[in-house]
Every structure is written in structure tokens, then in C-alpha cells.
């Protein structure tokens, strides 16, 4: 027995001193690389924020937030004492986004419920999964063209209003809502479904009261992510919702300006022409006013997205699964 047992010198397998030193060096270099990568990734983010805040804050005042662009000529001041404002664009952004939420959240959520709770990975489910993947790759301009073409055919030529914009945005939002909700529903433990079934609870109530309720914080985060993606869309809304300088409260009729489109319009017009006398007037004509308005509107857009994120976090926290009191 004993001679068939090979003797093994385990000291040979111990890591050598040079190996340990090399590992420490590697650890250090990788640490430096990773921190450098993090800083590099942070630079554009900080830079964007800083530029937007520093350029936008000059024009951001109550007057800017409470007036629209009607009666604004060139770089001249308006009778209100300001230089035009974005109240119409804020309202437009909120209405168009709300419209797309109303369309895409129920659709996306029901789609995810079907995929996770009912389909059992059948042919239809795989087809839907593929379509959702394809859909999430649609360029936003195509979504805008599609919505425009759809309403041109259904309602009449030249139909451009906020709701067409909502439809365009919902095409971009649905895949994100489906994907994130699906993932969230999948991670709800099967134990909970079985626990509910074992209490004699119907499938419908198990899904609405247990599964969706447990997944709610994650679903809210996913929806906020989807909103943040579409709220900054410019191209599809330029086609579908158009551009107007007055306030439009009706989502279903008339053109509607949104913040990104406003930013684009202002910036693309460049400097305003001011006569020599107008430059000296009080309040003066400001040649660079369009840039200032564009930056201020961009800042407002960022603030809206930030607020949405905060609300989302609050809701997620409120409905989070509580482990301790």
C-alpha cells in the first residue's frame, strides 16, 4: 500500500516570493488603470453638466420660465421685460411624454406579463422577444417618420400634433419598458407565486397583487429609464409634433414645441441681428440671446430628468421590499 503512494513535496506548489511581488505589482497597475478609466469616463459627464449649468444659468429666471416665444423679434426684449421663454416647450415636453407613457407603460407591462407569466417560452413569445429586440434598435427618426406617416394615412395629410409625437416616442419607449419589466418579473422568486397559489389565490390576483407588487420598484426604475431616454428626443418630434412659438395645451390638435426641439431651433438660428441703436437701448438687443435661451432650455431639460429620477427613486424606496424596519 505505502509504496504505491507517491510522496509529494507540497513546498514546490507554494507561490514563490517573486510571484507574490509580481501579483502585487499587477494589482497596483490594474488599480491605477481602473481609476484612470473611471476618471476618463467622468470627464465628459462633468464637462457637459458644467457647460450646461454655466451657460444656462444666465438666462434661467422666472420670466424665462413663465413666457412663451410669441412676440419675440430677433434679439429684442419683449414688453414683459424678458427675452421670450420656454413655458410652451415645458408644457409640450410634459404632455408629449405623458402621452407616450400612457401608451407604452400599459402595453409594455402587459407584454412583459404575457412573456413571463403566460407564454411558457412558446413560439409567439420568441417572436415577440425578437421583435422587441429589433424594435429597440429602431433609429428614432424612423419612429418619427412612421408616426407621421401613420397619422397622415389614418387622419389626413399634414397631421402634426403632440399626440403624433407621443406615438413616435412610445415606439422608442415600449421595448425598454418590456425588456426591463420582463427582467424584473423574472427575478420574482417562483416560491412567491406558489405560496399564493397554495392559498387558493387566482392567477390574476397572484400576478397583480404579488408578482407585480414585488417587482414594482424595479419596474418603476425601468420606466424612468425609458422616459429619460425619450424625453430628450429631438428628431422624431421635429417631424411628428412640429414647432410653434405659442403655448398649446391640446395634445390632440395643433403643433407642439418640446424642449429638445426648442433647443435645436434656437441654436440653429445662430446670432440675432441687432441695429446699432437697438444695442444701446434699455433693455438692449442681445445678439447672442438664442444661444443663451438654448442653453437655459437644455438646463431645464436636465433638471426635469433629474426630478423624474428623484421621484422614481422615492417611489422605488417607498415600495421596496422591506427586510428590517
Amino acid at each position, binding site marked *: 500500500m505505502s509504496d504505491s503512494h507517491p510522496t509529494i513535496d507540497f513546498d514546490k506548489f507554494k507561490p514563490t516570493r517573486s510571484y507574490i511581488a509580481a501579483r502585487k505589482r499587477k494589482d497596483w497597475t490594474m488599480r491605477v488603470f481602473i481609476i484612470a478609466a473611471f476618471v476618463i469616463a467622468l470627464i465628459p459627464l462633468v464637462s457637459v453638466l458644467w457647460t450646461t449649468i454655466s451657460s444656462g444659468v444666465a438666462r434661467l429666471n422666472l420670466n424665462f420660465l413663465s413666457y412663451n416665444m410669441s412676440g419675440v423679434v430677433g434679439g429684442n426684449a419683449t414688453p414683459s421685460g424678458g427675452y421670450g421663454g420656454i413655458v410652451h416647450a415645458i408644457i409640450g415636453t410634459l404632455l408629449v411624454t405623458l402621452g407616450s407613457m400612457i401608451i407604452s407603460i400599459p402595453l409594455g407591462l402587459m407584454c412583459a406579463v404575457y412573456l413571463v407569466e403566460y407564454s*411558457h417560452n412558446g413560439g409567439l413569445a420568441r417572436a415577440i422577444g425578437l421583435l422587441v429586440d429589433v424594435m429597440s434598435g429602431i433609429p428614432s427618426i424612423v419612429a418619427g417618420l412612421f408616426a407621421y406617416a401613420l397619422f397622415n394615412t389614418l387622419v389626413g395629410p399634414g397631421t402634426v400634433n403632440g399626440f403624433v409625437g407621443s406615438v413616435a416616442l412610445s415606439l422608442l419607449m415600449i421595448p425598454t419598458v418590456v425588456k426591463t419589466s420582463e427582467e424584473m418579473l423574472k427575478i420574482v*422568486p417562483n*416560491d*412567491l*407565486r*406558489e*405560496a*399564493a*397559489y*397554495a*392559498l*387558493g*389565490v*387566482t392567477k390574476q*390576483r*397572484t400576478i397583480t*397583487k*404579488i408578482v407585480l*407588487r*414585488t417587482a414594482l420598484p424595479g419596474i418603476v426604475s425601468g420606466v424612468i429609464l425609458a422616459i429619460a431616454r425619450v424625453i430628450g428626443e429631438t428628431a422624431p418630434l421635429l417631424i411628428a409634433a412640429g414647432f410653434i412659438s405659442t403655448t398649446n395645451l391640446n395634445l390632440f390638435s395643433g403643433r407642439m414645441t418640446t424642449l429638445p426641439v426648442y433647443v435645436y431651433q434656437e441654436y440653429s438660428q445662430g446670432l440675432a441681428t441687432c441695429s446699432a441703436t437697438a444695442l444701446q437701448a434699455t433693455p438692449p438687443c442681445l445678439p447672442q440671446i438664442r444661444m443663451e435661451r438654448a442653453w437655459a432650455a437644455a438646463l431645464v431639460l436636465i433638471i426635469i430628468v433629474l426630478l423624474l429620477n428623484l421621484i422614481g427613486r422615492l417611489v422605488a424606496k417607498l*415600495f421596496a*421590499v*422591506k*427586510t*428590517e*424596519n
Partner: protein
Amino acid sequence: MGQRIDVNHLNVYYGKFLAVEDVNMAIEPNKVTAFIGPSGCGKSTVLRTLDRMHEIIPGAYVKGEVLLEGQNLYAQDIDPVSVRRDIGMVFQRPNPFPTMSIRDNVLAGVRLNNRRLKQSDADDLVEWALRGANLWEEVKDRLGNPGIGLSGGQQQRLCIARAVAVHPQVLLMDEPCSALDPISTLAVEDLINELKKDYTIVIVTHNMQQAARVSDYTAFFNLRAVGEPGHLVEMNDTTTIFSNPVEKDTERYISGRFG
């Protein structure tokens, strides 16, 4: 009061695969019946057919009869949802609803079945069910706390309270103590002894000492080989099974020679 269950020629399938073959047994009312046997022999599967939980798995179905007081649970006009109200179930891993407080967990079965409860009725039901599960004294001051903040053993008793709160006639327990420490196990076993006054209890266990401690009747399941269907080898009162089994396989399993 507990009700009796008779199983006649039950064959359990997962799709085309026959998992358990031709089970015939009588489960006596207000007694504890234990299912024992090696892993994969189908004892949990049979347990889950008793409250039609088996068919939740896509493609799963059964042939044969399960009679609750003479009524076939698999008859055409029987709604599986109402079966599960009469026959409660406790699972291997404690699974309180994570979004609910202790109180809401107990009330979940009644509330989710769409019945509105008066505050006082709800209070009474919570106390009754938690007392029934021997948990009341430990949690009565913190009913609003989350159910998953409790220890594993307390969570399992909470799940038992949740199951009895819908007032079933039969309680099925699928290895209820396998995730618990010995002290919690003892608490649950004591509880099983008390619960059999009011319920018929069927328990699946891997622990033969547990089967010997808590059960009045024991059913031994086995399978001939992996891939073959499981079957019921023998069923008798627990003392006979453990002291004087008829079948040789039962004796070998109980004496620890295989499985």
C-alpha cells in the same frame, strides 16, 4: 375538522415522463401521515397532486383519482383554485410575501381572495392564526414589521399561520423543517402535533427520526432506478413501518442501508 383523502390509481406525469406510478393510499382524517423515501422517488410530487399544485408546472398532469371525503378533486367541474382553499400547503423554504408585514402575511390568503375584512375581524383572525402557529407571543408587539425580518423558524411558522388563516381542512407540508435549525424544527414539530386536532396533515420529510416522532402513518416511496417512475412501496402505521416493515426495501431504507 380534518377530512380524509383517498388516492386511487394515481399516475403523475411531467409531459411524457411518468414520474410516479399507480399510487393507492388512504390518508386518515386528523392524523399525521409522513411520506418518506430517497430523493427523486416522487414523494413531493405526490404531495403536490393532493392540492393540484402539480399542474402549475407546464405540461404536468395526472391520471387517476384523489378523493377528498369522496369528492374527486380531479373531476371536470372542480376548480383547482377552490381545491387549494380547502387544502393548504407549507413549503420547504419559508416564503412569506416580502412586501407584506407579519399581519398582512397572515391575512394574505383571505384578502387576496377578494374578501374585505372589518378591522376587528382581521385583528381576531391574525391573533387566532398566529396563536395556532405558536407565534403570537413572539410577534404580537410587532405585527406591522416585515415578515421576512423574522428568523427562519419564525418565518416558517408565519407561513403555517398564513396557511391556516384560510381555514383549510387539510395541511400539506413539503419538508417544512429542512431549512431550519434543530430548535426551530422542534417548535414546528410541536406545532404539527397540536395542529392535527383540527387538520389532516401530510408531511414529506427526509428525516426519518422526524417521521417517527411526528407521524401516525408512514408511506415509503421508492424508485427502481433513475429514470424509472417512483412508486409507493408500502404504507402502514408508523410504529409498524419502523419496527416491522413488510417489504425488504423499506427495512433497508429505514435501517440506513441505502438512500
